[in-house]
């Protein structure tokens, strides 16, 4: 096959339709960023709804926020930031060609990710089973503005739920590249997939960086 430049033909990771490895890498990274802006808009729709109702129902939003698990939320933020650190370190380790370090750091990332999901599950359990705060016919709320607080909880479950879904996907992706890294697939010559999964992981972290204040911190009273 007439596969172009000489320097490129030696790299087995180069796909046929790219001229050089550099072009392929740049395309992949740019593709990831374009994907991330679609994610911004995906969450953006929910942020818009949140913002509008906070504007309309300020008191109810404060009320709802006071019933968040403040401590679990804060701990979860720290957990997620730790996972971002291990992810960033993992990308660095791949770039340096440190196979074992990469795999170890990716395993830690997965661990932190699962810890986050576990804590989220504890919170959900408290809200749904113990406090009956899941919207719908079973919703119970003693205070004022209970209908609008129900909407607050709708946003809470929708936004943290979609975030958690992204975390689950993220854990899967990290597990996949950890396996590939373990097989020695990546190294200083080729690490785009690790970099891209890293970008995704950090993005999901950023979403939580905003969800945390918007749900846990808008009222100065923390009942839990």
């Amino acid at each position, binding site marked *: 096959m007439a596969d172009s430049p000489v320097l490129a033909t030696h790299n087995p990771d180069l796909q046929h339709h790219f001229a050089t490895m550099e072009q392929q890498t740049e395309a992949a990274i740019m593709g990831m960023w374009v994907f991330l802006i679609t994610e911004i808009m995906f969450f953006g729709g929910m*942020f818009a709804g949140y913002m*509008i109702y906070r*504007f309309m129902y300020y008191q109810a939003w404060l009320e709802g926020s006071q019933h968040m698990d403040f401590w679990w939320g804060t701990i979860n933020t720290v957990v997620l930031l730790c996972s971002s650190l291990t992810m960033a370190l993992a990308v660095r380790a791949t770039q340096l060609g440190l196979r074992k370090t990469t795999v170890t750091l990716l395993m830690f990332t997965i661990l932190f990710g699962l810890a986050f999901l576990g804590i989220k599950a504890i919170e959900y359990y408290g809200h749904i089973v113990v406090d009956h705060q899941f919207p719908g016919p079973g919703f119970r709320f003693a205070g004022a503005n209970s209908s609008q607080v129900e909407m607050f909880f709708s946003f809470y479950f929708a936004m943290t739920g979609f975030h958690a879904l992204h975390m689950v996907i993220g854990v899967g992706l990290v597990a996949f590249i950890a396996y590939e890294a373990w097989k020695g697939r990546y190294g200083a010559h080729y690490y785009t997939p690790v970099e891209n999964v890293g970008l995704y992981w950090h993005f999901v972290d950023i979403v939580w960086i905003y969800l945390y*204040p918007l749900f846990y*911190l808008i009222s*100065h009273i923390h009942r839990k």
Partner: protein
Amino acid sequence: MSAHIPTKKFLVTIWGSLICLTVLTAAVSYLELGRFNIVLALVIATCKMLLVALFFMGVKYISEKMTIVVIVAGLFWLFILLALSMTDYFSRSWV
């Protein structure tokens, strides 16, 4: 391309700053600032977002201008969505 490889110490420093900001935002959330609780919290969140984006995601080291344009465009479109829909809710009570 010539990838930028950050040092371990640098990444840990960024992480340390992020943790400090988290503790800070959690602490100031106890202050009774009324509507400014959320403002302060979002300002701190934006600082954290910038730290993650610039250094963990390496936006600061992206040599390709077009990728920066893509990112800015994404944020700008989010702004359009939030701002223009707010014009409606904001001005409904004016009449």
